[in-house]
């Protein structure tokens, strides 16, 4: 079975400071990893994904994430936070093995608050 852990319910960061939202995963094989963002009363918006190749993945709105296989982590980062980045962030995983399995397993989400 696959699972995702987001150890922080909330992350507070000052505007202009770097931000990190943590994610660790567990799969039986190799993972496909995703980050989504959810603004209030909105759906899930795709930010970035890791499939293979370079461990540092760049995505929308200046976000990036680093895949670390030994630590089974996929932390989301941004060099300089904006107030508009305040939202709920979800990490998700899909196992590469398991023929035909397309379901995403999500973490419980981390609320990011960027303080002006």
């Amino acid at each position, binding site marked *: 079975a696959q699972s995702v852990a987001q150890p922080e319910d909330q992350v507070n960061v000052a505007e202009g400071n770097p931000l990190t939202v943590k994610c660790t995963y567990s799969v039986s094989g190799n993972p*496909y990893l*995703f980050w*989504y963002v959810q603004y209030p009363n*909105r*759906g*899930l*918006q*795709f930010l970035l*994904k890791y*499939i293979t190749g370079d461990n540092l993945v760049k995505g929308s709105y200046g976000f990036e994430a680093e895949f670390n296989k030994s630590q089974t982590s996929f932390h989301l980062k941004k060099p300089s936070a904006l107030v508009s980045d305040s939202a709920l962030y*979800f990490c*998700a995983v*899909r196992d*590469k093995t398991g023929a*035909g*399995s*397309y*379901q*995403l*397993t*999500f*973490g*419980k*989400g981390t609320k990011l608050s960027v303080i002006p």
Partner: protein
Amino acid sequence: EPEVTQTPSHQVTQMGQEVILRCVPISNHLYFYWYRQILGQKVEFLVSFYNNEISEKSEIFDDQFSVERPDGSNFTLKIRSTKLEDSAMYFCASSEGSRTDTQYFGPGTRLTVL
């Protein structure tokens, strides 16, 4: 930019009633999904649908639930006899094809069962 749309945005129903939630996936996508998010909890997979049949479903997706693609554009989730615990935000998603493809989510339908 193409996007997944869902209607209605909010549905209120009485326990035991049937509801149908509607979704229009992105037009060239081949895989369709339903997920739900109970307030304050994780987003949970319900079902995936490909080539006019269910390809995968979770334990949540019991006999009370069904999905259908009644025409070339809509994808629906039906709950036959709603329960209080079905109250949640229901998200539709679609993807182009392979397992590396991104799933794009709609804005969700908030279902409230009274």
